[in-house]
């Protein structure tokens, strides 16, 4: 058995994705189902069971490396708690159904509520863990039913990126490949703890550092990412816009900007300049808590290096001013001309393996596939003709945050949630719970009985990534194929099968036989995917208009805007509404830990990850802990105006005094966060909430 990229492999076997030998073993190439880096590995399958993971040493993203979550992905496939049959809630508990019954119930309810209340009474949440093909079909299902309310968990992580970067430079993705970070001479990381959440990035960042690059990390906590940094800027939570504005103003004052780039490729510098009239470094220092000297040093390093990149994450996006944060990042990069060349760029680090693809496929209510605006008459015309539908909504519907509002108001009556767990992932859990309870009908499709599925009227068992075919689009816009390695457990089915059959039960035109027939349609209808007909071993990048031809680096000559210029957008700093006070003296910020993933529905069921970390920690500074007489390991209660939750104290000098950190992988954390959100992108504020901590007595 010889396969490319195996340790000890001697000959490359081109185009071979699955090889069997005499012992009934086969190797199936796949892409990691966790974060959006898109690392490649093989699954070794023996007698229908996935036995082993072998990282691909020839894969351009991970080069044979793999993080602990990647290794642990095997444990979800044959997990005993996998959902195996369609289930209906009854007074006596869950009742097992046949697929025909389940699809009929789902179709009847969607049809009944759609007919009596109108299609706007329906809400669809698509899954960023599903393939591009499945996301395309889910949004098509919603829209061909006349419903504009289709969204995904991209709302919770990078909605502000999609909106903000599009407004300033016409495209809303990573501009340069992840591995291109190795060519950077200065890397500014803001609000991203990639060392824990996208560990493979450390490889490329450290290569750059080894070649002499400066690494600057802005994060309230001294994270493992900050450990790698030459300069750590420990800003107060929620002050990213002030930090970036201060740096931009300093660069303008000192004349460190790239005048030629600004003149040739941008508009709006004067508006930006006047918007920063009162944003001196001294003011930035007062707001952020980072000294003016440190800010000036970081600004100079970024502006004056021959190739600087910005990596940012949810520390920038998950704020009530998330869009302003993203626009401030864009301003900095545009001002210094750090775009369109190797080693430069803006890299928003996406969380889910296919969140980029879900956005590309129109699983965000603002966009039809390929980021076409619903308000543009040509969009509805094109997709109406393609799908044979006359009732496509020519407007934006409700975001996932607004769907919860509408459910509470009683205008949204039914939801079909695919592969998402809003109870854990949405802010203000008691409100989310109330919202879902007030629905007439809730259907959840997932691989496990999640906290949200527990509330459903109908639960549909889905196949996991190793049990289906399709494509994932990683954070760097790399579209890669996955292959079916094993059969789903029990009667679980691929989401593609479920959605197609549901659509047919509803009498809609879904003539798809498999993932490749859907992908062919995607290549025809989504311009940026047009040339991606042959994905080869390691996929291809979008935008790709002709087979085999793509630019790994965006914005080299012009921006995809009208006129080809990028715009400076004044980013207004809004102080957080959550200032700590007498009742709630500490500031709670939420985030991630290396051995868990998002809502935790998978990793909290993975024994080898639980062995490393199995409980909710509440990280706090030794000073705060001493005042509250809390020591390491104490059980503590954290309380905010929204609710309270308990966890175990971890007393650490890595977190500044006055700040408390909790990962959101455990359901308790989002009992504490509230319903503030960004007015433009509707991304919730998840990073700064006033709280109090008490030791449990």
């Amino acid at each position, binding site marked *: 058995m010889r396969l490319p990229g195996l*340790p000890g492999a001697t000959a490359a076997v081109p185009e071979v994705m699955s090889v069997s030998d005499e012992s009934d073993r086969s190797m199936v190439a796949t892409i990691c189902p966790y974060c959006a880096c898109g690392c490649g590995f093989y699954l070794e399958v023996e007698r229908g069971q996935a036995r082993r993971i072998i990282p691909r040493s020839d894969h351009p993203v991970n080069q*044979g*490396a*793999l*993080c602990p979550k990647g290794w642990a992905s095997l444990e979800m496939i044959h997990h005993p708690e996998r959902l195996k049959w369609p289930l209906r809630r009854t007074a006596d508990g869950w009742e097992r159904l046949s697929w025909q019954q389940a699809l009929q119930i789902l179709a009847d309810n969607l049809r009944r509520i759609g007919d009596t209340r109108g299609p706007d009474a329906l809400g669809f949440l698509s899954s960023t863990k599903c393939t591009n093909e499945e996301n395309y079909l889910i949004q098509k299902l919603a829209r061909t039913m006349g419903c504009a309310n289709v969204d995904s968990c991209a709302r919770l992580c990078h909605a502000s990126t999609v909106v903000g970067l599009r407004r300033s430079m016409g495209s809303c993705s990573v501009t340069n490949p992840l591995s291109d970070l190795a060519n950077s001479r200065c890397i500014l990381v803001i609000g991203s703890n990639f060392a824990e959440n996208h560990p493979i990035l450390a*490889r490329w960042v450290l290569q750059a550092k080894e070649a002499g690059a400066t690494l600057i990390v802005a994060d309230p906590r*001294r994270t493992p990412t900050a*450990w790698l940094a030459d300069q750590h800027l420990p800003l107060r939570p929620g002050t990213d816009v002030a930090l970036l504005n201060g740096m931009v103003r300093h660069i303008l004052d000192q004349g460190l900007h790239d005048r030629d780039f600004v003149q040739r490729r941008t508009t709006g510098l004067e508006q930006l300049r006047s918007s920063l009239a009162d944003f001196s470094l001294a003011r930035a220092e007062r707001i952020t808590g980072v000294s003016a000297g440190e800010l000036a040093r970081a600004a100079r390093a970024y502006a004056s290096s021959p190739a600087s990149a910005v990596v940012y994450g949810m520390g920038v996006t998950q704020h009530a001013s998330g869009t302003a944060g993203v626009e401030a990042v864009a301003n900095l990069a545009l001002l210094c001309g750090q775009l369109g060349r190797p080693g430069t760029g803006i890299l928003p680090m996406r969380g889910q393996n296919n969140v980029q693809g879900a956005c590309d496929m129109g699983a965000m209510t603002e966009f039809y596939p390929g980021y076409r605006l619903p308000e543009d008459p040509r969009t509805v015309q094109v997709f109406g003709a393609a799908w044979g539908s006359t009732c496509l909504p020519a407007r934006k519907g409700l975001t996932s945050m607004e769907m919860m509002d509408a459910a509470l108001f009683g205008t949204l009556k039914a939801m079909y949630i695919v592969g998402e767990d809003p109870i854990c992932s949405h802010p203000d859990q008691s409100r989310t719970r109330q919202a879902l309870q007030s629905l007439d009908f809730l259907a959840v499709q997932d691989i496990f009985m999640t906290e949200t599925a527990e509330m459903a009227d109908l639960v549909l068992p889905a196949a996991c990534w190793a049990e289906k075919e399709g494509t994932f689009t990683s954070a760097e816009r790399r579209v890669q194929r996955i292959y079916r390695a094993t059969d789903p457990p029990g009667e679980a089915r691929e989401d593609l099968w479920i959605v197609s059959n549901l659509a047919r039960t509803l009498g809609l035109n879904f003539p798809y036989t498999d993932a490749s027939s859907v992908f062919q349609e995607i290549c025809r209808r989504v311009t940026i995917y047009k040339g991606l007909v042959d994905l080869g071993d390691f996929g291809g990048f979008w935008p790709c208009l002709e087979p085999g031809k793509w630019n790994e680096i965006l914005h080299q000559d012009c921006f995809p805007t009208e006129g080809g210029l990028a715009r400076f957008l004044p980013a207004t700093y809004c102080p957080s509404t959550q200032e700590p006070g007498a009742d709630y003296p500490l500031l709670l910020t939420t985030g991630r830990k*290396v051995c868990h993933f998002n809502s935790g529905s998978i990793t909290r069921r993975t024994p080898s990850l639980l062995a*490393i970390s199995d409980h909710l920690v509440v990280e706090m500074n030794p000073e705060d802990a001493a005042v509250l007489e809390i020591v390491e390991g104490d059980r503590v209660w954290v309380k905010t105006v929204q609710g309270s939750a308990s966890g175990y104290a971890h007393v650490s000098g890595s977190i500044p005094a006055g700040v408390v950190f909790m990962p959101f992988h455990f359901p308790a954390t989002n009992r504490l966060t509230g319903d503030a959100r960004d007015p433009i992108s509707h991304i919730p504020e998840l990073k700064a909430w006033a709280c109090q901590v008490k030791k449990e007595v």
Partner: protein
Amino acid sequence: MPVYVDVGRCVACHGCEMACSVSHQGRSGVFVQVVDDLVGVSMICRHCQDAPCIRVCYAGALQQEGTEVVLDETLCTGCGLCQAACPFGLISGGTRPFKCDLCPGLQTPLCVTTCPSGALSDGPFQAVAGHFRALAAQKLARSGVRR
């Protein structure tokens, strides 16, 4: 030849632990110790040239083979003396001891290839020292270049 860790590169992701345990029936010979919530140190058998574990093993289950310290589980009595003798605490498993076997059959131990940040390396002492020497020299050279 043991595996070396560059603590400046380790991001304490536990990838090496997981890779080791997945490839050794759930037992890991690598332990990522996080010191002061800051520094990740991957602790892996040093394959000592004058190994205390070999000296205390009266059953001959631990043997020096070239540059490696090899454990033969079939000879092991489970007395636990090796675990007490290891100055680094890198033999684990109680009555069923386990330690780094440098992944027989693989060119490079899995912990080394799996490390996302490239913090682990293996090879002869001289090669590893040479690598670190070259890095340090580059750093010194850069500090002397006028910008």
